[in-house]
Each structure stands twice: as structure tokens, then as C-alpha cells.
């Protein structure tokens, strides 16, 4: 889905609405940012009126505050929330096959996967990077995961460049944002200030170009693209969190033993929220089910986390990571170090979700800095 970007178009809010309508007309199930029961989520979008207009988020370690302003017209004013696109691509629980007993033995049937054609609307650059990380995990090796692959092939990606950074964003450090460079069909920057409201769009694929042509938008003016660029740069400048991505792998490999792990384990609940919200974490466990009479069985895949004891359970011996310190170390070292050796990229894209949604506000950037500091001491 990569491609060179071409010229820019400028869409009015009405033309943006027409784009959403065109998507639906073309048979896409559109998913995008919404507010439901007072919470920011990704959900079905039937028209641009269903987006999170006027909302903005404030994030700090362990806290997320959503607010609405009557003054703001922005449809994409919220940077991100707990949901990631993993929600649509990597199912939390999925039956893989079913087996039926018969007099002569048993027969096995693979569970079919028939995903709808879907469009992800407003994918942040870090989340595009995360999807590409999961692409490498699920489809990059010798055995592709059929379920992920089929869903992924059916997904159109419409990126939203960032014009704000949350208090927990550090995509700039990870090289994944705040502008999307590749990995999308369409990308836009929303400009909503001083009474002006428009979307500067670029198309990267044939599918994207075709959709864009349906909303009758004119080419963007130089002033409009300049404004969009300036907003993206201001988001970059506003990012307060940083991570030394260049040295982190070597640092963590040198620090399997470091007093910081024990200190963090005192705070860490081993609740697994960080891995569950992380858009790149991909771990799962297999669960075998039987019917009560034992005539049928099925195997399901269920999302799992390196923070559970079952995850590292060794036959006859229990978990090899009984201490929370070793589980926290596994998580952080996988994200920032061993992932490079395993998949050739960082396992962290700097979205900040693990920091925000950790119920006790443990901050991966702060932990990285603390390990470096403890080593220097």
C-alpha cells in the first residue's frame, strides 16, 4: 500500500463529508474516531457528523481527560485514545478450527475468515507505523497469519497527520510521526483555526486517488499546504516526551541487571494493560474447548501478555518469570531492544498509550532514562 504522494487537494468539511459518503457507497465499512458514552473510541462511522467534533484530549501518565469545546470545529482534535487499529486487525479471541468426532476418528474444519472491506479513517502516523510493525510480525515471515492478512488486505488506510501532540506522545523520537510518510492510501492534515476549516489531502494509491476524485475538491493553495506543514511542525515542537532510540537497544542489552527493575516492580501491577493497549503487541495463547459430551472440540486464539504467569509457564516448573521485575523487563526489552533483532524494527512507535493507560502511570520513556542514569551511577 506504499506509494509516492502526488499533489495536494483542499477539502471543505462538506467535501470531507462527501468523501466519507463515497467510501460507504464504494462498500467500505468506515471505522473512525467517535465519542460514545463519554469516552473516545474507534467505532462505526456512518457520516462525518458522527466523528468526534470539538473534542480534545489531555494525557498524562495514568490519566486521560476528554473535553469538548464549543469553539472548536475540529473533527480530529483528539490525538488518540485507548483503542488502536489492532481492534480491527488482530482479534482478541478467535476460533481457528473446529473438530468433530465420528465413529472412525475425527474431522477438522478450519474456521473461515471473511472480513468486510473496511476503511480506517484518521489513522495517526504512529499507528500506521504500528500497523506496519504488525504486518512484519504476522505476514513477514515464512508462515503468514491468514486471519490478520485477510483483514489487512481488506483495509483502506486514511491517515490523519498530527497537529497536536498529547502529553505522552514521543513519535518524533521513534521516527514515526507526526507526519505520515508512507503506508497509507490517503493522508490529510486538518486545519481548523480562526474560522478556517479545511483538510489538505494527498493520495498515495490508485484507490486513494479514485476516492479523492469523487469529492470534487480543488488543488490546495501554497498557503494552505504551508499552514498544514506549520501545524505538523508545531506538534513536533510541542512533544515533551523523548526517548533515546539510537542507544536504547545497547543500553537494555547491557542492563539485564539493574536496580531500576526492582524499583519499578514495586509499582508495576502486572495487570497487562500496557501490552493490551500497545498497538504492536501481538501475543496470544491457544485455548482448546470441548463440548460437554466431548463429541466436538475447537481451538481458539486468545490475546495474552508477557505480564501473565501462564505466558511463561514451563511444563512441570511453573513460570520462569515469577517476579514482576522480570516481567516488566521482558516487556520493555522486547519493545525496545529484542524486537530489532527479531523483526528489524523497533517494537515501539511512540504512541504513548502504555503510559496513559497504565493504571499507576508507569512511563516507558522515564524508565529508559532511569536505567541509563542508574547505569551511569
Amino acid at each position, binding site marked *: 500500500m506504499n506509494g509516492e504522494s502526488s499533489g495536494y487537494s483542499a477539502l471543505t468539511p462538506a467535501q470531507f463529508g462527501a468523501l466519507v459518503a463515497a467510501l460507504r457507497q464504494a462498500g467500505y465499512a468506515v471505522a473512525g474516531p467517535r465519542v460514545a458514552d463519554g469516552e473516545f473510541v474507534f467505532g462505526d462511522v456512518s457520516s462525518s457528523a458522527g466523528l468526534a467534533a470539538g473534542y480534545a484530549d489531555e494525557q498524562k501518565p495514568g490519566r486521560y481527560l476528554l473535553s469538548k469545546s464549543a469553539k472548536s470545529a475540529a473533527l480530529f482534535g483528539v490525538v488518540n485514545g485507548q483503542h488502536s487499529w489492532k481492534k480491527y486487525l488482530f482479534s482478541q479471541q478467535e476460533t481457528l478450527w473446529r473438530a468433530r468426532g465420528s465413529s472412525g476418528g475425527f474431522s477438522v474444519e478450519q474456521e473461515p475468515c471473511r472480513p468486510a472491506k473496511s476503511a480506517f479513517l484518521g489513522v495517526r502516523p504512529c499507528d500506521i507505523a504500528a500497523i506496519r510493525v504488525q504486518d512484519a510480525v504476522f505476514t513477514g515471515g515464512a508462515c503468514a497469519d491468514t486471519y490478520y492478512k485477510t483483514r489487512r488486505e481488506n483495509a483502506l488506510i486514511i491517515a490523519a497527520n498530527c497537529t497536536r501532540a498529547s502529553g505522552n506522545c514521543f513519535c518524533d523520537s521513534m521516527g514515526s510521526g507526526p507526519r505520515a510518510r508512507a503506508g497509507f492510501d490517503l493522508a490529510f492534515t486538518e486545519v481548523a483555526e480562526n474560522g478556517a476549516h479545511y483538510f489538505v489531502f494527498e493520495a498515495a494509491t490508485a484507490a486513494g486517488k479514485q476516492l479523492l476524485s469523487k469529492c470534487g475538491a480543488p488543488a490546495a493553495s501554497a498557503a494552505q499546504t504551508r499552514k498544514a506543514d506549520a501545524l505538523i511542525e508545531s506538534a513536533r515542537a510541542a512533544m515533551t516526551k523523548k526517548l533515546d532510540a539510537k542507544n536504547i537497544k545497547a543500553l537494555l542489552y547491557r542492563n539485564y541487571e539493574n536496580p531500576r527493575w526492582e524499583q519499578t516492580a514495586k509499582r508495576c501491577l502486572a495487570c497487562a494493560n500496557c501490552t*493490551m493497549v500497545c498497538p504492536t503487541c501481538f501475543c496470544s495463547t491457544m485455548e482448546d474447548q470441548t463440548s460437554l459430551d466431548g463429541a466436538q472440540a475447537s481451538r481458539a486464539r486468545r490475546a495474552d501478555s508477557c505480564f501473565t504467569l501462564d505466558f511463561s509457564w514451563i511444563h512441570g516448573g511453573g513460570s520462569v518469570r515469577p517476579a514482576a521485575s522480570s516481567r516488566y523487563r521482558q516487556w520493555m526489552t522486547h519493545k525496545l531492544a529484542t524486537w530489532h533483532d527479531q523483526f528489524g524494527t523497533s517494537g515501539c512507535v511512540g504512541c504513548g498509550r502504555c503510559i496513559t493507560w497504565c493504571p499507576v502511570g508507569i512511563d516507558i520513556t522515564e524508565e529508559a532514562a532511569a536505567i541509563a542514569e542508574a547505569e551511569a551511577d
Partner: protein
Amino acid sequence: MVPETRNLKKGKPKLAVCKLASCDGCQLSLLDCEDELLQIAELVQIASFPEATRHFEKGPYDLTLVEGSVCREHELEMIKEIRAQSRFLVTIGACATAGGIQSLRNFADAKEYVSFVYAKPQYISALATSTPVSAHVAPDYELWGCPVNKEQLVEVVNAFLNGRKPNITARSVCMECKAKNTVCIQVSRGTPCMGPVTHSGCGAICPAYARGCYGCFGPKETPNTASLADWWKRELGAQEDFTQRSFRTYNAWAPEFRAESEKHGKK
């Protein structure tokens, strides 16, 4: 601890439901299984199930589900007899697994409670403490919850019948919350939630209705209660008595919750 059901002697396995001190809510969960219960009734011989029928058959039993905690004098003997009669003994619910809500008495003077509640306290023969089955005999499996989750209950019976381990994990309620895509209310609303230290099993019901988890399923594996309580106090402004009450509800006598509750509020 996987029971060898395949070696059962001829005939259906015998199932008994036994009751110690409890509200019967967990037995009701089994009764509530409707469709599955009919199937179960075909696959096992129900020897005893007080909430459903007066029919009673003597042991030994292949599978015994025990509800309730040990609260009264005669239950001390009863649980030993139940164990002796049971090939595979499963505790069901907070009472049998952790002592239940009635273990709140363990933090106070039970005699005093009795005199408040009953007109003729001399007829009451209550022990000073309410204790879980495991304090008296060794169960083969413990199912948490106040009440138990009926799918988990059926899963335990299913696993027994098919000679496999139940698909039940000691992970946090948070993982169920996330699996449902419920937005975390502790983070988004600042509502103190027991989910990060609580055993999964309920399907994260309360957070889905914007209420903090009450800890009905008891402590999860390696619960870090101190860190959670510290965050509630520092960041969410929780009062000490609130924290004490949060750890002293349905699973007050579960060792990890008990220890945390003793660090907060009045002694």
C-alpha cells in the same frame, strides 16, 4: 490436577453439590445454566443438589462442588466428611474459596455481632471466624467469584468430564476489560478500580457500566495491592477508610486483600 475421567468405572460420574455457610447464590448460578444443565444432567448422575432437589444419594462422589465457608461448629466435621467422600473437590465462589463476605466477622468480635443481630443469641453456635474450605481440607480446584460466573462453572464441569484443565486463568480483570474494548474508567474518570489486582472471570462487568471493579473474584495472581492503594491515595485522593472497605468486601479474608486492608483505616 487433571482428573482421570476416562478410567471411571462403568456408569455416569456422580456429581454432588454441597453447601456450607452461604447465600446459595453460587448454586443458583448452576441452576441458572438452564440449557447446559440439561446436558450435564444427562452426562452425570446428580446425587445431591439442595437448591434444586430434595433427592439425596450417599457418597462417594466423583465430582463435588462445595459452596459456602466454614462458619459453624458442625461444618468443621462436615467438610472433612465431604472431602473423604469426594474424588474431585471443587470450591465454588467467594465463601468456599476465600471465606466470603461473612469473614468480615474475622476482623471484629463475632459474639458482639451475634448479640446485635439475634433476639436469642444463645441459640447461635457460630465459630469466631469464617474460613475457606482450604483452611480445613485440600480442594482440587478453586473457583472464584461472588457469585461464580456460570460459564466458568460449566467450564469446570466440562473440563472434568473431558479430562482436561479448565480454561480459566488468574489474569487481571483489566485484561477482560481490554478484550471488550471498555475504556478504563480509572484512567479516564479517576474512579478507583480494583480490576488491576482482581482475578478475571466476571467479564469486567462493572467498568462497562462506569463503576470501579469491586473485587468479587478475589486476588489475581501476584497482586500488587500496595501500589494500587498508593496510587488511589496519591493521584485519586482516596480516603483510608475507602481503601480499607475496597479490600474488605466479598473476599476480605483472601490473604492478599486482608493484608492490604489491615494497612488502611481503623484497626
